[in-house]
């Protein structure tokens, strides 16, 4: 093997005045950064192994640790950046596709941050959500064109199945396998308490979590892992996963070493076997094939459950979404190019797909121009970071949002982007029982409830400021947004005016 040309990314700084050699850092680090040198009688660190997950920093009882970006630099070069050079070293060494995790971290413009929100002054009183009703409840599903009543005002309309959400927020698809049992337990229980939904992802539904079925969306993806009658029957809704924002156009791969006894049972595959999700569904090569799967799943669930379709935001997303609406889906989830993942090829994560802000705006506009927007629900995903992003997504035309990374951060994720290694020190993206147990679902679910409740309050405050007392009246209400620092073309696609206009 040739010389490894890489230098450490991070540097562990230890304040020896504070360090008491308690070895907590050593025990906490699955990457084996810290060790105790008996001769020196002190703790030492191997910077090479550090991923900056900050587990040791947080756990150190004397606050002796700090992780910094390693000061080692290359000669400055605007073209051959740090990452560009290091990626070549890694590939020259391994001959492999570069893997990465979590969402696209490249410095693309973040359009959420180029939009600002309106508020009432004088002509329209703002509403105080502490004193006035403020409704956040929404329904996801197909809506009839009109209500039909008989002469006694009995409803004749047959309402298609709806998901009822107390907040316009759901937990995004993250499979058991990509995240841990305890992470799933936290998400499922929080969804139930909040009156929202979590999504199993494509890894099946663990039998322990069937009791949360009323708040569970199950995924049917190209690998069809864990899909059986019971799975469909237990869920509140079924989602066909076509694509994912972090890796549009490619499938997934859960390495065999992560397929434990439990995962094997949940996914319905042998222990230790690789779980490969093909890039396309091999029974969906066209929109009419998708329609067949939608109706197969509706048949299998007696037309009692919404069947949604999740796609990645790509160039032609508006036309694709229109096709999905016409193919019979009850909702469309669109995942933008900053969406997270447990593992994706780095080049794909960082270069394929479009921002969710544009995707939502153009899909909403397209469906409206075809007169079918009100018949279907639209869920935006792919890096919703806070309540303001949600307000903006809904004003652009979404009915609700999915959050993935934000939910994981709530239960401890520090965005070290190493999910694919399976060594998550926070017990989230790992199947190592010793690491998994670090995440206490009793605490995890409460932190998730806190997050969503806090965002709910913030959304109510912003709605009240706009003079709105029902989240429904924000949907597609793009007059409530203004753009800053965008080109006219960008403003036009988002369908908003520039600030000051």
């Amino acid at each position, binding site marked *: 093997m040739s010389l490894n040309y890489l230098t450490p990314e991070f540097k562990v700084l230890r304040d020896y005045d504070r360090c008491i050699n308690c070895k907590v850092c050593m025990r906490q680090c699955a990457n084996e950064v810290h060790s105790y040198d008996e001769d020196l009688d002190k703790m030492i660190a191997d910077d090479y192994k550090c991923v900056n997950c900050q587990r040791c920093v947080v756990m150190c009882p004397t606050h002796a640790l700090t992780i910094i970006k390693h000061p080692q630099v290359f000669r400055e070069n605007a073209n051959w950046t740090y990452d560009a050079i290091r990626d070549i070293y890694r590939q020259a060494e391994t001959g492999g596709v570069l893997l990465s995790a979590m969402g696209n971290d490249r410095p693309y413009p973040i359009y959420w941050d180029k939009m600002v929100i309106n508020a009432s002054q004088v*002509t*329209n*009183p703002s*509403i105080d959500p502490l004193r006035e009703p403020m409704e956040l409840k929404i329904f996801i599903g197909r809506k009839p064109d009109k209500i039909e009543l008989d002469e006694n005002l009995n409803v004749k309309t047959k309402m298609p199945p709806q998901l009822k959400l107390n907040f316009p927020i759901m937990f995004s698809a993250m499979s058991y396998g990509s995240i841990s049992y305890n992470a799933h337990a936290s998400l499922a229980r929080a969804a139930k308490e909040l009156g929202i939904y979590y999504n199993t992802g494509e890894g099946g539904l663990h039998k322990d979590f069937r009791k949360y079925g009323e708040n569970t969306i199950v995924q049917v993806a190209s690998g069809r892992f864990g899909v059986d009658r019971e799975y469909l029957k237990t869920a509140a809704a079924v989602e066909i996963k076509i694509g994912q924002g972090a890796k549009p156009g490619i499938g997934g791969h859960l390495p065999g070493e992560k397929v434990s006894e439990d995962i094997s049972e949940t996914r319905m595959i042998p222990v230790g076997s690789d779980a490969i999700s093909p890039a396309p569904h091999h029974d969906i090569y066209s929109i009419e094939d998708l329609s067949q799967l939608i109706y197969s799943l509706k048949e299998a669930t007696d037309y009692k459950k919404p069947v949604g379709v999740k796609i990645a935001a790509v160039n032609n997303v508006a036309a694709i979404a229109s096709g999905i609406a016409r193919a019979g889906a009850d909702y469309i989830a669109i995942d933008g190019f900053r969406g997270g993942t447990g593992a994706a090829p780095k080049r794909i994560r960082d270069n394929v797909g479009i921002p969710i802000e544009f995707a939502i705006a153009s899909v909403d506009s397209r469906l409206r121009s075809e007169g079918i927007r009100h018949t279907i629900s639209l869920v935006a995903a792919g890096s919703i970071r806070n309540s303001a992003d949600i307000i903006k997504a809904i004003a652009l035309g979404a009915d609700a949002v999915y959050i993935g990374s934000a939910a994981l951060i709530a239960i401890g994720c520090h965005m070290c982007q190493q999910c694919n290694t399976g060594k998550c020190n926070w017990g989230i993206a790992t199947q190592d029982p010793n690491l998994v147990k670090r995440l206490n679902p009793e605490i995890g679910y409460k932190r998730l409830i806190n997050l969503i409740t806090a965002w709910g309050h913030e959304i109510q405050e912003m709605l009240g400021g706009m*003079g709105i007392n029902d989240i429904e*009246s924000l*949907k597609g*209400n793009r007059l409530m947004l203004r753009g800053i620092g965008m080109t006219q073309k960008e403003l036009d696609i988002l369908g908003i005016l520039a600030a000051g206009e």
Partner: protein
Amino acid sequence: MLKEGNIRIPSGCAISGIIDKSGAVFSGQIIADSIATMHDRSNGLGGGFAAYGIYPDFKEHYAFHMFYDDAKAKQDTEDLLKANFVIAYEEKIPTRKTQSIKNAPLIHRYFVLPKLEVLNASEMNDEDFIVKFIFNVNKNIDGAYIFSSGKNMGVFKAVGYPEDVAEFYKLETYNGYMWTAHGRFPTNTPGWWGGAHPFNLLNISVVHNGELSSYDTNRKYLEEFGYSCTLMTDTEVAAYIFDLLLRKHKLPVTLAAKVIASPLWNQVERLSPKERELYYNLKIIYSKALLNGPFSIIVTYDNGFIAINDRIKLRPLTAASQGDMIYVASEESAIRRVCKNPDKVWIPKGGEPVIAEIEQQNISEIYDKKEVTA
């Protein structure tokens, strides 16, 4: 600077409405006196009236009231009118010179019926045909604007204080069984005549005080049903929502009220199972027809009106009754001015409609029996 119609302008306002439930007609002077009381609620940039029962001689014809910026707009519109309609009668709407109403456009009215051959070829019912024609003229003929299109009713509006508008149009000479009035306080640009209230489509007219926070949501929802919101006013959106609910979706007016000011979910949950089912469906299907933000509004239709506030009552609305007369207005003073001692005066709760309708079913019979007191 963009003219109104190209830009959305919020405005505050005064509104007033009067109906004689017996169907007896009364002069426009009464409503003019009522709205004049609330002079300070408007700023002279828009006033208007809707009058029902004023054209008994042409009660089967659609009465088009038109603003033309110039002779060319008039010529273009009349060419289109003649191609599509049989015109029973047409004239310049009589006005009197007043000091405060300036820059009047050409104002004409036409009593028309669609040509049968054109209507049949269009494969539409006559109401849809008329709506399409109105949208076409208002959107595509530069300087032409149809601001009233109902049967046996008419809208009269201008840039000015409402009492001056009444004088300008000689409203004391008209007699109707139901009148509404509006005085406008726009917060931007000298108003445009078409932007004044009432806003009308077929027999539905709207006078509105308020600002819809949900404007863009409502507008986009309506566009999916073929409405084209050319004026960019909140009132236009409110009018189309009523047109959609009452005319196209055949909802009773009581339920239309519960769409635009829908009960809260926790109220719905406390209802009887049958009502819960009804409101569950209404709220979900018409979630984007909810009018959000402060408003008081009077919507007039064939045989009555509904006056209603937003569901948390952010704008004033008072109602009163005396015998067959029902009054609604932004302020009680506007009612007391024309009805000294009402039997009953009340302030409707947020979202609780005041609905007043002609008691006889067949309005046309009323005119056969009653003397017009002009």
